[in-house]
């Protein structure tokens, strides 16, 4: 219950962003820059999941969160750019790194959530049993 509530604000943020992207931000991305946008999307997604996980673990630190978001995005874009210059698909490195981290974070969050549910269930059955 508390978890669902705590996800409300981030979900609202994503909804607001999608609305902004469709209705307010003008123009489209040129085809050549789609790669960059894709990598930026992955970086943002990774940061969001990382922040969510840290929040669930009560280990959230805003400085770590925002610095990670900015450096990850910039580094990913830089890798993509260098890869484009060199003719090597370096952006794949960013895609794989972020992809692996996203799956890791989701797995860890799953464990945390399942652990909490199990605890609550045990506490609840104890209460009803006595």
């Amino acid at each position, binding site marked *: 219950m508390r978890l669902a509530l705590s996800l409300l*604000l981030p*979900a609202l*943020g*994503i909804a607001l*962003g999608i609305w902004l992207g469709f209705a307010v931000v003008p123009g*489209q*991305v040129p085809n050549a820059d789609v790669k960059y946008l894709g990598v930026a999307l992955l970086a943002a997604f990774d940061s969001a999941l990382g922040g969510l996980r840290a929040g669930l673990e009560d280990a*959230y630190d*805003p400085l770590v*969160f925002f610095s990670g978001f900015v450096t990850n995005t910039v580094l990913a874009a830089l890798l993509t750019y260098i890869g484009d210059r060199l003719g090597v698909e370096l952006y794949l490195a960013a895609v794989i790194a972020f992809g692996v981290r996203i799956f890791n974070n989701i797995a860890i969050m799953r464990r945390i959530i399942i652990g909490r549910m199990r605890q609550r269930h045990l506490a609840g059955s104890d209460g009803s049993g006595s």
Partner: protein
Amino acid sequence: MASIASVPKPGRPAAAHLRISWQISLALVGVVLGITIAMLFRTQARQGFPLAQQSAGTLAALLKQQDDVNTRLRTTIEEQRAELDRYERQAAQGRSLSHVAAGELRHFKVAAGLVPMLGPGLVVTLNDSPKPPTSLADAQYKLVHDYNLREIVNELWASGAEAIAINGQRYVAYTPIRCVGPVILVNQERLAPPYRIVAIGPAQAMASALQMPGGVIDAMGPQIASGVRAQVVSAKQLRVPASPALPSYHFAKAAS
């Protein structure tokens, strides 16, 4: 005030403060995430069906579909034009002033090429060489080209033609003749050889203008030597169809 907020109180309040903080920053990143998702989605939607990446078969099917649509629309034009004609005739009946106006309208429609024309004239038939070209350079000599048609039409106008059609496409003031790959477009209509140019006008004068030494057919000498056929025949009764549609004007305005 600030010190109160930063003093860690025992138990829940500090934890709640922390929780709200990560939710807000997550929401901020969520906004960026959402904008990126939306922009990527829009970009992909625009790329949705890139024609250049489709197979030849798909393209051919698409072309066929559009051709069918074109044919249907053209029938609609003809139907509506007939209807318009009927209305004009009905309106002209009874009143002499509108009768005069109708005559004038008729004149302008003839001038614009919106009326099929009958009369004597010339038929120029051009056909590709029966032997297929072996290279791009060879194609220059074994095929009939858009510039051949343009030169012949130009010469026909110059020698007194009053109405011209190529393979049933009325040639009017705004008709382009251009080459697109293996076909020639006239009025945006794809034409295939043989090309039959029908011109109503003084047959004798037009024929000699076309066939004079150094004239347009003479200039096709290398092509004719490679097998391209050019034939000029006069005829007593020819029919030139109406132009399919009037152009729409987006930039030019009448000055008076």
